[in-house]
């Protein structure tokens, strides 16, 4: 199988799902799985509406980590083409913060690789998000010293 360069990017602009699909489309592939993580509307326990998520990255480290995730995925599954795109900055409700697109010869592998990539990405890539509420307040997810979120090395 020809090995194509992966498309790995942190981007401050809206992510383009059609471009990700086009990138991974290939005659050697029979299945393409694309995952989009989108900002879901929420209401806080005290009734405030979520209007967006603000994403901040340690960009050099996060890109290196995403490349390493891609490298390990290619060792494990027969990936034809792969795109991992992640937003920085403000992502409004219903907009995507992350797109992972994977093409493989057979469909089962595309689902498994894509699922594993998004699960791993969330566990240790140096990206943070802040919930932005309609009243102007913001809450860093995992950033409260009193909550129970684990740090990525535990």
């Amino acid at each position, binding site marked *: 199988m020809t090995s194509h360069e992966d498309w790995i990017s942190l981007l401050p602009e809206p992510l383009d799902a059609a471009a990700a699909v086009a990138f991974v489309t290939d005659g050697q592939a029979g299945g393409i799985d694309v995952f989009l*993580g*989108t*900002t*879901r509307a*929420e209401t*806080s326990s005290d009734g405030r509406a*979520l209007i967006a998520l603000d*994403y*901040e*990255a*340690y960009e*050099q*480290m*996060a890109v*290196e980590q995403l490349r390493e995730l891609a490298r390990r995925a290619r060792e494990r599954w027969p990936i034809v083409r792969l795109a991992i795109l*992640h937003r920085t900055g403000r992502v409004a409700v219903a907009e995507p*913060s*992350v797109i992972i697109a994977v093409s493989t010869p057979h469909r089962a592998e595309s689902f498994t690789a894509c699922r594993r990539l*998004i699960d791993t*990405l*969330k*566990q*240790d*890539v*140096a*990206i*943070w*998000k*802040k*919930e932005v509420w309609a009243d102007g307040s913001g809450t*860093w*997810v*995992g*950033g*409260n*010293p009193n909550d129970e*979120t*684990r*740090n*990525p*090395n535990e």
Partner: protein
Amino acid sequence: MMVTVKLFASLRERASASELRIELAEPATVALARDALAERFPTLCDFLPRVAWAVNRAYVPIETELRDGDELAVIPPVSGGCDDVT
């Protein structure tokens, strides 16, 4: 020796700084840098037990030795991707 310290997210806001340089006596470790940070930014103290550490963009244990010019990043719990149940 000097190391560059990078702060992100809640720690960056709490310290009102995203990058700073600190001087450490040799031999220095990440643990010693943590103590220096806690002294300089008392508001970070309650965060520091829960963070991870990266030297030159790779996660390291707290006892790792530092070298002059290293980039030390304080990594609060990550939350990239999407879809945390809030």
